[in-house]
C-alpha cells in the first residue's frame, strides 16, 4: 500500500468516515468534521504508523490530507 493510501486509511479509521469522503485536498476540520481532540489523535496515529515525530508547532500546520502526506514523505 502506498504512503498516500496508508495516510488516507488512518484518516478514515480515526475520524470514522467513509473512504470516498477523503480527498487529498480535504481539510480535517472544515471538510472532515474533526475537532481538536480528533486532530491530536490523528497526529499520534500517524507518528506511530510512520515512526516520525511531529511536534505541536508542526502539527498545527498540517491542516489537510495532502499536508500530512507531504510532511511524512519529507521526514520519514
Amino acid at each position, binding site marked *: 500500500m502506498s504512503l498516500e493510501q496508508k495516510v488516507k486509511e488512518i484518516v478514515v479509521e480515526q*475520524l*470514522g*468516515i467513509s473512504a470516498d469522503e477523503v480527498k487529498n485536498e480535504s481539510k480535517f476540520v472544515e471538510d472532515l468534521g474533526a475537532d*481538536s*481532540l480528533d486532530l*491530536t*489523535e490523528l497526529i*499520534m496515529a500517524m*507518528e*506511530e504508523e510512520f515512526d516520525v515525530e511531529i511536534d505541536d508547532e508542526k502539527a498545527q500546520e498540517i491542516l489537510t490530507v495532502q499536508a500530512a502526506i507531504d510532511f511524512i514523505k519529507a521526514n520519514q
Partner: protein
Amino acid sequence: MPRVVVTGLSAITPIGGDLETSWQSLLSGKSGVDKLMRFDCSEYATRIAAEVRDFDASSYMTVKEARRMDRFCQLAVASAKMLMQHSGLDKDVMDMAQCGAIIGCGLGGLETIEEFHSKLLKSGPRRVSPFYIPLLIANMAAGQISIATGAKGPNLATTSACASGLHGIGYAYSDIMLGRAKAMICGGAESTITPMAVSGFNAMKALSTSNEVPEKASRPFDLDRNGFVIGEGSGLLLLESLDNALERQATIYAEVAGFGASADAYHMTAPDDSGEGMALAMRQAIREAGVSPEQVDHINAHGTSTKLNDASETKAIKEVFGRHAHDMILTANKSMIGHTLGAAGGIESVFSVLSLYHSKIPGTINLDTPDPECDLDYCAHGSVSRNIRYALCNSFGFGGTNAAILFKKFDE
C-alpha cells in the same frame, strides 16, 4: 411535593439486547452466564461471566461516536435512545432544560484505562490518546446521554459500587420532588469484564469459580453459592413528575413511593452481618412512602450469590418486616443476569417496575438446596403471576453503602 412516576424503561442485559427480550428471558428462567469471552482468561481462577453478546453499537450511533465511547457509555447511550422511544417523550415538545440524567457507574471505563496503561508502558507518554480521560470518567455515560437526547437538566454520575444505579434513581427522584427537573433519565451502566476487574475480584474471593457449569454458577440464597458472577449491561428509567406525565398523556408504569440510603459504618467490603445498615435503608424507603411494612408484597433482592450478602440481606429483611417477611415473594435477578455492578440497581429497578405493571414475578434460578440462613420465599420454582401493590428493590455496595427504593402500582 410533586408525585413522581415511571414513564419509560429500557435495558440491555446478558439475557437480552432490549427491554422486552430481557423481560421474557427473565420470566422463562434463562441464564445469561457463559464462558468468559471478552479477553483470554485461561490463567484466571474465574473463566465465566454474564456478557452482553451481539451488541452492535453502530445500530444506535455513528461509527465515530462509538469510537469515542468506552463500552459502558455505548451501552448507556444505546439504552437511553431506546428509553426515549419507550417513554414517548418528545424533545421538541418537552422543555429539555427540565430533563436531567443521573447515571450510576461503579468503576467507569476500566477497559480504557487498561488499554492506555499498556500503551503508556510500551510506547511512552506521547502515545496516550487525548480521548483517554474523556473515555474513562464515570460521569461520561450521563454526559453522552445528554448529548444524545438533548437533556440539559442536572447531569452526573452516582458512584457507590454495586449500589450506584439505585442511588442514581433515588437522587433523580429527589431532584423531581424538589422541583429541579420535571423528568430524569436515571439508572446505571457498567462494562468491566476486564483482566484487572476479574483479577481484583478474584483476589477478594468474591467471584464464583464454578467454571464447568456456567449457567449454575450464580445461585443467590442457595446453600452452595460460592460468589457472584461478573456481568455487564445498562438499565434505565424515565422518571417524571405526575403532572408532566399526565399532561403529555404518557403511559405510567409505576409510581416511586420512597427511597432510602444508609451506611453500615462497619467494614470496607463485608456487609454488617447484623443487617442493620441494610435495614435502615429499607425502613427509610417505607417510611418515606408513608406505608406500613405489611403493605409491601415483593422485594427484588440484591441477592448476589455471595455467602455474606445473601445471609445478611435475609436477616435485614426479617428485621424490617418481622413475620410478614415470610408472606412476601422475593426474587434475585442476578441468578440469571449475573452481577452487573453499577448497572444492577438500574436493571433490577426496571424489572421491579415491570413486575408491578404486569403482575408477574420472575423466579430465582439455581436455588436447589435451601440455606437454613436464607429461609424466605425467593420464588425458586419459576415465575409467578401475582397482583402486587408495592415492590421494594435493594442494592448494596462495597464501602458498606445501602440503597432501597419502593415502587407502587400506579393509580390516580
